């Protein structure tokens, strides 16, 4: 079923909407949640919460890009849940990703007057200027939290190359944020 029709089902308050969302994007949501939470039970609950979130948001929201809308909710809920999970239960990959990203922009003490939405726009602008591979690898890693090995396999790069690309992109992003007035 196409996304427009699924959104219509939400507007019609038809519960089939959730079944269709699950059948189309359930796997994707599970993979985002599992990448973040490293636990099947928690991931499952997060995905169910995602559907509730979508149900509550549509209507009135009518997302332009339904897939991204669903992903965003799944990612957000999974990250919130991660805060309650003890450090030792978190995956090494996630911890490393956090450490890497903290070096770019750690917390609210930095750039307190700029919203996350605005920083998101600056990051979007930065990513548009990167070559396609660097851009995709960055998004795969830090939006979807795919592992290095998964990314390497997906794009047929060596793992070292993926790490190198991420390293470069993070450094360039940090420089770019400073240049764009995001105080770091």
């Amino acid at each position, binding site marked *: 079923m196409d996304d427009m029709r699924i959104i219509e089902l939400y507007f019609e308050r038809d519960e089939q909407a959730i079944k269709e969302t699950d059948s189309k994007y359930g796997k994707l949501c599970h993979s985002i949640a599992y990448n973040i939470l490293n636990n099947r039970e928690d991931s499952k609950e997060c995905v169910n919460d995602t559907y509730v979130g979508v149900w509550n948001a549509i209507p009135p929201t009518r997302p332009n890009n339904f897939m991204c809308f669903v992903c965003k909710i799944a990612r957000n809920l999974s990250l919130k849940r991660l805060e309650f999970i003890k450090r030792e239960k978190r995956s090494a990959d996630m911890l490393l990703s956090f450490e890497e990203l903290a070096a770019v922009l750690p917390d609210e003490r930095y750039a307190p007057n700029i919203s996350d*939405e605005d920083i998101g726009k600056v990051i979007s602008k930065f990513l548009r200027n990167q070559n396609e591979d660097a851009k995709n690898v960055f998004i795969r890693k830090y939006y979807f939290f795919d592992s290095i090995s998964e990314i390497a396999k997906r794009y047929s790069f060596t793992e070292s190359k993926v790490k*190198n690309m991420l390293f470069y992109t993070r450094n360039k992003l940090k420089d770019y944020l400073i240049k764009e007035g995001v105080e770091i």
Partner: protein
Amino acid sequence: MKTPRIVNAIENIDDELVSGVFESKKKKNWVKWVALAACFAVLVIAGTAILPSLLENDIINPVETDGRYKDFTISTKNAAIVWPWEYLAESERPYEMELNGVKYEKTSGRTVSEELIGDKIGNYNIVGYDGITDKRPTVVCAVYQLKNISQTQFVAVKITDSYYIFKNAVYNPPQTLGELFERVDLSQFLKLERFSENGDGPDAKHFVLNDDKYVWEVLSTCKNAAFIDMNEVYWHPYDREFISFTISSEALGIYKRGLLITADGYLMTNAFDWGYLYYIGEEATGKIIKYAMDNSKEAEYEPYDNSNSICGKIVEITDDYILVDDSILCKDEADGITYKILINDIRISRYVDRDIIDVGDTVKISYNGEIDEQNSNTISNAFSISDVDILYEDEIEEQNYNADSSSTVSKEVAAISK
């Protein structure tokens, strides 16, 4: 650890970027590779279509033979410049033409030698495309048949003094392998020589086959193998065991494309730009793979681009040449060499004309031929210049960056000159 702020900010990146990661993979497999304004981009896309690591040119680690250099990795910056028509070399200009109601497109920037040219078909309008102005510059050129190749698939067009291959641009995949061979006798134009196992990057094992006759014999028994439309099914070689032949043909206007044979019975090739996939059966692919492994010798990895390069900082730009000093790469700066790059090719001069490069920039210069060491280290056949970032290995280590990167990256041999 608290969630870093940027993690939440990344949640707000534009939807098109997020959904773009799903589209790009698909594109690489089966969306038609259009002639982009930047000629190299066509090669990148074509090369990556089924062999994504064939051209890993955005991060390379030069291997320098005389020991002057530190360990470093260079990364080319985003270089997708769309040049105005007048700044394009003829080889870079995208053209198309219509012959008997069928659209043909120029295949690549490579020229074809006169001995492959057959009878003249006639004079036709060749229509270019200027990516800046959207105009369509048109020239009248002589169109020729290619010897032993049906003009329904390929023709040669003489533009200025060189012949270029134009290919039937209509997507009309042969429905069987036999039909593919009827259109073009691949055994005549492709030499199956170099191949790699389960990948094609520097980490894969590479081989040179002694003789490809048996492979073509086996393929000739698979003429009924049916075409599989990759727009309909998801198919990717990387969850399969396979060998991948690197194929080039002057007459077909292709350079280092791929022909894959998978252990589970598939043949796939991007020789004709589109990915063509056929199921030829496990028996046939098993025979080919066994034969290839038994009748080949292991060989060194060969990078996609065999041209030479130098890298360094620009120290002077004149009307006639650019001086590039590579001492920033040297263990001892005193060992640096200054190269004199002659500005005699539009692909170099346009960077100077348009002020894209400046003194102090770090650049990589690619060239054909040799450096004239007796004459101020002059490079007279430079054809490409790009801004680069240099990252020294010790800086990576300092930042506790993964130690294994150096060992793997060092295998990514780029042909940086001595």
